[in-house]
């Protein structure tokens, strides 16, 4: 398993797999398969794949620990960058076909409509993460600060789910499904954080207890 995960070829294969949603869109575009409203189809597809890649990215840490596969870390940046790639396509369909690149109209729309506002915020949050995804930036920022910054993905994922939920008119099953996945992944982190804090407290208490015993 380890050999498989650390192989260069696995990385290449995963990279190509991540491009399949885009390939499928291009294939459909060339074969008249985008349906009656191609812009909407592309918008929905790229939006959903953004959420999926955010969720996959958020899965890496729990899977590393629960499955004892630390090498999964090799794929995290790639998944995160694919989330950013698909959100850029998603955003472009909004800028172009929807708003005809009319910046004033876009600004008004972003300010006025909560569903656009929250989606836009999610997108903005991902920009610095994509920019600082290189080894050089990790060094420049220092591991601790870099990690703090990259926790913004939690908020981006939540924003993405709210954006989707608010977009849907009445059948909210899909957004709720993605929401549940994000909730589980974030709660797992909260759980880890709480138990670590408790073990610190317990350690502190027991060391104090030991000191007290020693003093007695």
């Amino acid at each position, binding site marked *: 398993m380890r050999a498989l995960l650390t192989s260069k070829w696995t990385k290449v294969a995963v990279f190509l797999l991540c491009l399949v949603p885009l390939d499928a869109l291009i294939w459909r575009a060339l074969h008249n398969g985008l349906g*009656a409203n191609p812009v*909407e189809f592309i918008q929905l597809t790229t939006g959903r794949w953004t959420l999926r890649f955010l969720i996959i990215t958020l899965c890496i840490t729990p899977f590393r620990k629960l499955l004892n596969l630390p090498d999964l870390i090799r794929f995290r940046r790639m998944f995160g960058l694919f989330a950013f790639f698909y959100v850029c396509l998603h955003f472009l369909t909004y800028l172009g076909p929807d708003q005809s690149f009319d910046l004033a109209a876009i600004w008004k729309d972003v300010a006025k409509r909560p569903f656009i506002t929250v989606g836009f915020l999610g997108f903005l949050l991902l920009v610095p993460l994509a920019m600082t995804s290189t080894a050089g930036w990790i060094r420049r920022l220092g591991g601790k600060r870099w990690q703090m910054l990259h926790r913004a993905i939690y908020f981006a994922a939540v924003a993405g789910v709210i954006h989707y939920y608010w977009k849907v008119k009445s059948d909210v099953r899909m957004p709720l499904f993605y929401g549940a996945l994000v909730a589980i992944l974030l709660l797992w982190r909260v759980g880890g954080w709480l138990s670590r804090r408790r073990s610190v407290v317990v350690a502190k208490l027991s060391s104090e207890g030991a000191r007290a015993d020693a003093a007695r």
Partner: protein
Amino acid sequence: MLIRKAPDLTYADVTPKSVYLDRRRFLRVMGIVGATAVAGKSLFDLALPPQVAFAATKFTNLAKSDFSTSEKQNSYEDVTHYNNFYEFGTDKSDPAKNAKNFNTSNWVVSVEGEVAKPRKFTMDEILKVAPLEERIYRHRCVEAWSIVVPWIGFSFNSLIKLVEPTPKAQFVAFQSYYDPGQMPLGRWAGIEFPYVEGLRLDEAMNPLTLLCVGMYGESLPNQDGAPVRMVIPWKYGFKSIKSLVKIKFQQKMPPTTWNLSVPNWYGFYSNVNPNVNHPRWSQAKERRLGEIFKRPTLMFNGYDDQVASMYNGMDLKKNY
């Protein structure tokens, strides 16, 4: 011990998926072919399962209408594969798939309430109420997309005149067919069924208001509201109720499905109005299916000459 055996099947031996999925009919047809030896095309047709769905009827000698637009019509493919018909699923592609076997035979539309002559209409009777016309209308969905469709029907007021509303009749309430057995996805739609809609009597009397039985020269496909629906071209698409079974004349403003679901998003009138936005999106522009960029939305969907006078003195921002 390991027993190795060379695979003696190649991919060419695999049963084609279509034959595999259709094996029962395949066997039945093969049986008939073998037994009769003279099996011609007619027998093959007999072996096909009976068609429950309302077979498309062609309409001929349709009158042209002055209300028709000369704009480019959308393709039949688009209008039949991009539908909002939540009883059959909430995805635009769902109704085309799930309404295939919708049984619309023995359809009856009941007309009741404040009328001198309440009665039930069969489809045959409806088709005889008035001469059928082709009306090419713009159709604007509240979701900011639009289509141009050659509907077939007649002004709804022809039917109104037959049943003679009493002076108490101020509004008309409409109800769609609902059968959870035939529409199992309806429970996930997030709105209450049966779907209900309504018009003010003068809106219902407006000659633009169409009782629609077909499109593109044929009877309505199931996913487009077979066998009979309303088409009210100056209002958002959801006002044009599908698969109509009940029409009730009444004094009170009737409840309407989307208004019941989210009152501050969808009003009773729901006239197409580029100046009154949906809380979640702008209504200033729309995407005509088949186009990439959006075009400006017209007041009353471009039918202001015929309908604007009905709303004189009304605050359309309040009465959205």
